[in-house]
């Protein structure tokens, strides 16, 4: 029944060859670069539109961006079974329209565009400035608005410098007048009203902060300000101004982002992903056979791809655990707990991750000691520990937030259930084998987690594991080989050292 060792070597060799072969195929055939950052950056942005249809004809119209300053539209596609699609321009804004004769129940349609960052890129079409609207404030706001405008006007020379001065005032939390306006209006809306009052053409448009791997984002409103030559600039009242290459203007005429007829409860959310894959690596029309043969995760919706970025790193973490246990002999508490810990470290930062881990485990052990007096059955006891861990994490989050430390918000990435089991196991270990054993396994887990983190955090490891799926087979082959290692662990050289010393004496 058990296969001979040679069979195992063959399996490993075949997996390795297939993995390396596929990797070279990806590189040569699809021009996927070996190292990150050697090609231009591409942003895949996906809009997911959800609505509820009532069985009538449905029409969905989504504003979509064109090539614009800083970004070139590289390609786009839609996924929407049963819908007819066409795109059109209206007043300088491009729209995609989905239509269906009859739609019923929950509907989801996708639009996906790929944008290449290019500092030289310029929009193909001009937009017309809007006519300044007449602005009416309520009496108390009128005074505040007048004071802001008066100050800003004196400090400025033209439309853009006026907009800058207003942005500065709206961003100043000490400015009583600005705070009064912001209590009534959103920052962008308040700024548009102020500019219109000064007869500067301006409007609120929407765009996306590009951040790798973000899901279910909403667009943020920004202010588009025109000068006398119909040139325009964007202003970000109440926000940090993002870098040019990290802000994609999605809708630039102040029109509606999404219009749905024949449906209700509609909403649109955005997911985005940064890749360094060149244009040729992106299948324009991925057929199923192509997708399977190329094992290309890039044909999945972007929100799924973002999840896969983490999942595809897990084999590396598992391999580090195998190496740590089989070759080094590090004892860990829970076999794969260090990998989950390393994933949490990736989302936070190493130092804050370690501090959080030690705090949660330390306080958890204290709480667990108190629980011992209640004399509960195991499953109930661990459940109580889970709730305590959640409580601890919430508490630390709140405390660190108010202490001005930013890490707290990310503590939720910690694998809570796993931590609860770790606390339970360590507590039992403490009772039965003493604190030394707890320190040994705890530090073993932490060291393994840090090792896994250090490898998983390397940019080229992330690039390779995500872009060359063949490497997963190579990792698999390595783990299979490690699983048949019958030599000594490093820890055993220490354990059996009396033999070495006696041998030397004798």
């Amino acid at each position, binding site marked *: 029944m058990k296969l001979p060792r040679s069979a195992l070597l063959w399996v490993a060799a075949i997996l390795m060859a297939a993995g390396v072969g596929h990797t070279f195929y990806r590189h040569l055939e699809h021009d996927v670069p070996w190292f990150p950052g050697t090609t231009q950056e591409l942003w895949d942005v996906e809009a997911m539109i959800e609505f509820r249809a009532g069985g009538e004809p449905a029409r969905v119209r989504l504003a979509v961006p064109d090539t614009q300053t800083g970004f070139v539209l590289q390609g786009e596609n839609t996924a929407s079974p049963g819908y007819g699609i066409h795109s059109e321009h209206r007043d300088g804004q491009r729209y995609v329209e989905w239509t269906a004769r009859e739609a019923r129940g929950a509907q989801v349609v996708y639009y996906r565009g790929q944008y290449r960052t290019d500092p030289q890129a310029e929009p193909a079409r001009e937009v017309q400035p809007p006519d300044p609207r007449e602005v009416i404030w309520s009496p108390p706001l009128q005074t505040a608005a007048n004071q802001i405008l008066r100050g800003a006007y004196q400090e400025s020379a033209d439309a853009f410098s006026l907009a800058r001065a207003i942005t500065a005032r709206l961003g100043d939390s000490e400015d009583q007048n600005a705070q009064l306006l912001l209590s009534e209006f959103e920052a962008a809306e308040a700024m548009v009203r102020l500019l219109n009052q000064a007869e500067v053409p301006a409007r609120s448009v929407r765009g996306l902060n590009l951040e790798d791997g973000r899901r279910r984002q909403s667009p943020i409103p920004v202010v588009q300000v025109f000068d006398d030559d119909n040139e325009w600039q964007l202003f970000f009242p109440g926000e940090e101004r993002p870098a040019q290459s990290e802000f994609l203007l999605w809708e630039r005429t102040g029109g509606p982002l999404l219009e749905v007829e024949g449906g209700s409860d509609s909403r649109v959310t955005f997911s985005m992903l940064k890749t360094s894959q060149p244009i040729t690596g992106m299948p324009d029309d991925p057929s199923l056979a192509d997708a399977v043969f190329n094992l290309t995760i890039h044909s999945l919706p972007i929100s799924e791809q973002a999840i896969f970025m983490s999942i595809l790193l897990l084999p590396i973490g598992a391999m580090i655990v195998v190496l740590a246990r089989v070759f080094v002999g590090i004892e860990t508490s829970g076999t794969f707990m260090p990998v989950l810990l390393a994933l949490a470290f990736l989302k936070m930062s190493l130092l804050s991750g370690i501090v959080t881990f030690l705090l949660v485990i330390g306080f958890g052990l204290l709480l667990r000691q108190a629980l011992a007096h209640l004399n509960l*059955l*195991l499953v109930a006891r661990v459940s109580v520990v889970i709730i305590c861990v959640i409580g601890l994490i919430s508490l630390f989050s709140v405390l660190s937030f108010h202490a001005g430390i930013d890490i707290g918000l990310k503590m939720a990435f910690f694998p809570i259930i796993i931590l609860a089991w770790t606390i339970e196991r360590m507590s039992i270990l403490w009772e039965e084998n003493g604190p030394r054993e707890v320190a040994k396994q705890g530090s073993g887990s932490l060291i393994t987690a840090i090792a896994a983190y250090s490898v998983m955090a390397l940019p080229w490891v992330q690039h390779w594991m995500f872009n060359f799926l063949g490497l997963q087979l190579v990792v698999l082959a390595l783990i299979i080989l490690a699983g048949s290692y*019958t030599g000594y*662990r490093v820890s*055993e*050289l220490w*354990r059996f*050292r009396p*033999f*070495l010393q006696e041998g030397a004496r004798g």
Partner: protein
Amino acid sequence: MADWSPFSWARRLRSLGIVGLNQRNLSYINAHNDRSLFPTVDDKLQTKLLAQKHGINTPTLLGVIHSQVEVDRLDALTPEGQGFAIKPAQGSGGKGILVIQRREGEHFLKASGVWLHRRDVLRYLSNLLSGLYSLGGKPDVAVIEGLIEFDPHLARFSFEGVPDIRVVVFRGYPVMAMMRLSTRASDGKANLHQGAIGVGIDIDRGRAVRAVQYDRPVDVHPDTGKPFRDLEIPDWPELLELTARCYEMTGLGYVGTDMVIDPNRGPMLLELNARPGLAIQTANGCGLQPRLDRVLAETALRAPAARVTFARAAFATPPERSLPRAG
């Protein structure tokens, strides 16, 4: 250790025949122990019933408590004025074992000299049944056994508790033996890494080869002051034959047998372990590998008694490596 490279250390250990954990797991446990046979050794009650069927001596079974509703049977199962031990059937490493020296009505005298009230014993039983001591917290059953008498000769070497003898049996051949003696440092427990003493036992004559505490050689028991060179296990051939018969009984090719000696009833099987540890090598000051290879080379089918004869001849410790005998 002139050469400090780890590779040369590994080569030296290999040449001494030391078996490492990876090799134990792959080449011996995985290769010779069918996983379907594990439950019989992981459950002390099953082991005991199987041993009884094969006529292998085990401590007297007074009774089994299967569920919470049965805890009141404690009084019926335990004789007044006598001692007994309660064990979790699926406990590991000696966890959760309660040894009672004497019961007098509602009161139970522990081995350590502390009196327990009946309700304390009932609470302990209910914890045991709900899985406090079993692996993974599975519900367990309580096995109640008659007390093992101390062999007066061996008892002098142990600080507390009955000293047990671990014999590793490979394909029915006893290959290496070790006695585990608890110390004050090990808190009465028989775990070597907690400070218990491991005494390597000569497979041929049942005498101490050497003794180690914390991996270092010791000559006398630190608490009782007895010199280990006087240690000799009574009924040694009978004990070895019992261990050899565990192969036919379980079908496990690589198994650790834990034995005790009762002065009246002779050697008895306490429990079996399908994943015996490697500390036995340190206690004996020699590696398992050459002996295991020697057994693998034997193709002849032998009865347990013949296997013992073979093992005693093949694995005898040469006199120059034994502890010097006093007179």
